[in-house]
């Protein structure tokens, strides 16, 4: 596609439910990043995928968070047993390879009620 695509754009879920967020990176981009941005705050690193290497999960805030990526294609971020503090915009970005210019998707706004 022309850019990084994320779905859904908005998600409202009840506390305790699981959610799955999807990211379609730009074709050919080997690096993919997930970030969390709370209202008025900065970009909090969550996880980084580089090709077929083991992902860097050092930013995941708890074991309720997990992410997968199949090869160099789609990635999904899963949040289990959602809590109100999980409410944020989740941004995905991809780049040709690690360290290059990153292109961001429009994000998924998650609201946990």
């Amino acid at each position, binding site marked *: 596609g022309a850019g990084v695509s994320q779905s859904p754009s908005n998600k409202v879920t009840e506390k305790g439910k699981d959610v799955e967020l999807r990211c379609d990176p730009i074709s050919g981009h080997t*690096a993919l*990043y997930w*970030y969390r941005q709370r209202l008025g*705050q*900065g*970009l909090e*690193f969550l996880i*980084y995928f*580089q090709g077929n*290497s*083991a992902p*860097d999960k*050092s*930013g995941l805030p708890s074991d309720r968070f997990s992410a997968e990526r199949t090869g160099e294609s789609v990635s999904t971020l899963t949040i289990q047993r959602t809590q109100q503090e999980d409410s944020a915009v989740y*941004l995905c*970005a991809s*780049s040709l*390879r*690690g*360290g*290059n*210019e*990153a*292109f*961001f*998707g*429009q*994000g998924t706004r998650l609201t946990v009620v």
Partner: protein
Amino acid sequence: QQPVQSPQAVILREGEDAVINCSSSKALYSVHWYRQKHGEAPVFLMILLKGGEQKGHEKISASFNEKKQQSSLYLTASQLSYSGTYFCGQAGSIYSGAGSYQLTFGKGTKLSVIP
């Protein structure tokens, strides 16, 4: 280990200049600068790769001192369109092994340009 940005916020009148600083506690491979307008995704401005490198983009330029692990973003003759939050991002050294290209951002500097 995220980079530290300063100032946190700045208000400018059109035509004024500003400098945003970014410093890191770890060895850097590159420094990235992005701008995010309210309600939008961050947009890439520039990457600096070499020690002492400077780059320019319109009236926005930046420098990177690899030895000091510092970068500065210079906005000259600011325009209303420059308003937004500026983030510096750091990618680690190519010698630091797995995850070395993890792109970590500072907390951002909110820039407001008023008429």
